[in-house]
């Protein structure tokens, strides 16, 4: 509330600060990028925006200042006078006026420059205009810099003024310096005012609050006042004078009867009389302090007379409805040191304030409206009969019963008591199963199994489970009996072990055939296709034939004989005819002949033990496809030559491109003697 609390005023920045703030805001919050190639309207708008933005911001800030500082006419006269005393009314008004003018000047500047910018014809010219506008606005602000500084000081001081509510019940404490005002203040309120032996310890007003009869009272401590003409007073004294003048409160004039403050009673009385004009219409009390040093009765004649004079003055302010102890209400004694009479003083002061306020309220016009609405109705007694309280009988009985139940509850043993008896919370664990309601109480402590063999027991719970189980077992028996018949049927067609063996053998043979075929197929391209009779590998022997035939269950001896005899006889016949004719007949026979004679020659020339050894390598065997010995020898040589290089590389064949060690250490580690190591 502006009325008595000036803490809400925003900070007033100094001239330089304000300029900085607003210019930086303009920089941040308006677009910054512009090129000379833009349309001229766009350029004009850009700069006009900046000028207007700056003007607006200045306007806002300055308006805030002007509005928030209180107008001295619009606040309570106490505050306006206080502000005048502290800051000089004229100076204050002047400063605010300057701020106002600055605001108007800035608006004018902005308007003018905006008008000029409308006709700017190049980027450069618009920019210059904008710079000039902002420059002028900032100069205006710089010129009011001192006023802003002054206003900031005022604001800071105002914020620290005590918040005094002029309309509240107030007690004002005044008197010479060092009489004990602040000590009294400390005694009755929670305010912690400085109390020191030198004069003018209290330099400004202090506020404290105290309570009396459920109401809050403000207590205002003032700096000491000296007795001098009005014009000579300093600011501090003027504060107390202002407070005295404007606050409608009870006034406690403190009197130091002992003279230890450094001023005599006479001086103090003189002060009293000089400011008694300020005490009009206020309940006045003359408080004699420091009576532990000097009793009131023990005063000198003159002093007593002076005190009486003061008392008389004070009596005038008392209400006209004279009290027998009016004197008590006007002149009180106390000592802040020994604390006798302090509370009494406070109470008396508060009472007097209350009385005065009530009286004023009663006198005002508004009270009549309220009074009309009050009416306390008292029923008139009809006759002299006595009518006491009546309680029905049932209610009384119920009450008695309730009381009994209460008593029982107290007697009943709780679980908590049981726990405590058996050792406390950590030792005793309550049996939760105690109150279970089961068909048979013996079952209470049973441990119920929940899981069995991977099943939940609860899922099977059923009262007639055993009957169903019996049924099930019967069914099962029937089913099993039926199934046994089926089994026999299936087992009928079984193979004997010998048949099994035969089947395995068949499968083996089949597999072997397939494998052979696959090998042949894959090597078909590289193998020479030679008819069987030129049996290079010599696999078609009679032994083989014999084995195979006997494997099939036939007797091979006859077949072998036949083969052998035929070959032998054939060979013989041919030899004779060859020797006779010289030339061969059909190719077939010559071939046969050649083979047979060769065989025979071999058989003849070589002994039995070596009959199985092979022919020398150069010998041309007809199945191979060579013309004569030289060709074969050459072929062999060529073959060996082509293989030699590979063998030296330890490669198995053409397709062997295996590299055993992909990263041999000697190639992939170490520094080079010369050159870079960026490639390895």
């Amino acid at each position: 509330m502006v009325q008595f609390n000036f803490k809400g005023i925003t900070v007033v920045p100094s001239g330089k600060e304000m300029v900085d703030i607003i210019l930086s805001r303009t920089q941040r919050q308006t677009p910054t990028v512009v090129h000379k190639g833009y349309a001229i309207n766009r350029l004009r708008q850009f700069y006009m925006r900046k000028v207007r933005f700056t003007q607006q911001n200045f306007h806002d800030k300055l308006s805030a200042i002007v509005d928030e500082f209180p107008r001295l006419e619009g606040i309570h006269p106490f505050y306006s006078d206080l502000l005048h005393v502290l800051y000089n009314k004229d100076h204050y008004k002047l400063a605010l006026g300057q701020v106002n003018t600055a605001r108007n000047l800035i608006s004018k500047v902005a308007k003018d420059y905006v008008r000029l910018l409308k006709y700017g014809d190049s980027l450069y010219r618009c920019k210059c205009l904008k710079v000039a506008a902002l420059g002028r606005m900032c100069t205006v602000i710089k010129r009011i810099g001192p006023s802003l500084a002054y206003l900031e000081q005022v604001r800071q001081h105002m914020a620290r003024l005590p918040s005094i509510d002029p309309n509240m019940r107030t007690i004002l404490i005044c008197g010479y310096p060092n009489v004990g005002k602040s000590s009294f203040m400390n005694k009755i309120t929670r305010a912690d005012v400085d109390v020191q032996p030198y004069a003018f310890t209290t330099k400004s007003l202090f506020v404290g609050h105290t309570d009396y009869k459920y109401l809050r009272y403000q207590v205002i401590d003032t700096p000491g006042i000296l007795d001098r003409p009005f014009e000579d007073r300093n600011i501090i004294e003027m504060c107390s004078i202002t407070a005295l003048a404007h606050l409608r409160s009870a006034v406690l004039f403190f009197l130091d009867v002992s003279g230890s403050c450094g001023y005599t009673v006479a001086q103090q009385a003189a002060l009293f009389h000089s400011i008694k004009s300020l005490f009009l219409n206020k309940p006045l009390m003359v408080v004699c302090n420091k009576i532990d040093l000097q009793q009131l009765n023990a005063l000198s004649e003159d002093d007593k007379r002076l005190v009486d004079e003061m008392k008389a003055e004070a009596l005038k302010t008392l209400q006209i409805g004279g009290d027998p102890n009016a004197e008590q209400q006007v002149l009180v004694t106390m000592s802040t040191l020994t604390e006798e009479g302090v509370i009494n003083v406070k109470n008396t002061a508060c009472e007097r304030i209350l009385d005065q306020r009530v009286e004023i309220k009663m006198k005002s016009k508004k009270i009549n409206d309220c009074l009309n609405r009050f009416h306390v109705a008292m029923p008139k007694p009809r006759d002299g009969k006595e009518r006491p309280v009546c309680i029905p009988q049932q209610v009384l009985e119920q009450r008695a019963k309730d009381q009994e139940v209460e008593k029982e509850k107290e007697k009943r043993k709780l679980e908590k008591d049981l726990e405590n008896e058996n050792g406390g919370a950590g030792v005793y664990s309550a049996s939760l199963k105690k109150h279970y309601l089961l068909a048979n109480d013996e079952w209470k402590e049973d441990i119920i199994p929940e899981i069995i063999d991977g099943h939940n027991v609860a899922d099977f719970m059923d009262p007639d489970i055993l009957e169903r189980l019996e049924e099930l077992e019967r069914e099962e028996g029937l089913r099993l009996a039926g199934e046994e018949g089926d089994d026999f049927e299936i087992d009928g067609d079984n193979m004997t072990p010998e048949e099994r063996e035969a089947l395995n053998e068949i499968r083996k043979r089949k597999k072997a055939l397939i494998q052979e075929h696959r090998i042949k197929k894959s090597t078909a391209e590289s193998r020479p296709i030679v008819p069987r009779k030129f049996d290079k590998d010599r696999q078609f022997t009679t032994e083989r034939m014999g084995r195979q035939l006997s494997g099939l269950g036939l007797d091979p001896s006859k077949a072998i004989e036949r083969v052998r005899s035929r070959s032998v006889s054939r060979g013989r016949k041919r030899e004779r005819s060859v020797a006779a004719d010289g030339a061969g007949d059909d190719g077939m026979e010559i071939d046969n002949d050649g083979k047979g004679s060769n065989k025979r020659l071999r058989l003849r020339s070589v002994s039995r033990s070596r009959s199985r050894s092979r022919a020398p390598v150069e010998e041309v065997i007809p199945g191979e496809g060579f013309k004569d010995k030289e060709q074969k020898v050459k072929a062999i040589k060529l073959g060996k030559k082509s293989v030699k290089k590979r063998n030296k590389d330890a490669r198995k064949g053409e397709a062997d491109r295996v590299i055993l060690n992909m990263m041999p250490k000697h190639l992939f580690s170490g520094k080079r003697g010369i050159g870079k190591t960026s490639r390895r």
Partner: protein
Amino acid sequence: MRLEKCWFCSSTIYPGHGIQFVRNDAKIFRFCRSKCHKNFKMKRNPRKVKWTKAYRRLHGKDMTQDSTFEFERKRNRPQRYDRINTEKVLQAIPKISKVKATREKDHITKRLSVGRVNRRTEDRRELEQSISLVKAPSVLKEDATLTLPKQKVTVSYAQTENTPMEE
């Protein structure tokens, strides 16, 4: 304490195993191990994943309908404890599981028996067709059984036979 079923593979989840997932519509999915959980997160349908019970039941690999399933049913109403009944139930449970297990086994055996019969006929046919690979037809004529022939030992390559001719 309850043993739950895994939502994905339908195996039992023992206490201390697995993860429960509660969806925003308050449906609870329990998984027995991270394999099932990860499959679920991949949005796989258990009815299409071969090793789950759901697949097996759907495709007739395991027994689906049977009276033994009705013995085990989750009841939502709590029942008052009754010692006599509980004892009966505890006796009955192993027997019921035994019956159930035998029935499941028989179901599988029955399913697989068809294959056995087929294999037998196959074998017989193969034997009849391919007996000639191991047994010469003339030998078969004499001894009509489908078994391996008695081995005739070959006369070994005798030296005496040829030498007179050479000389």
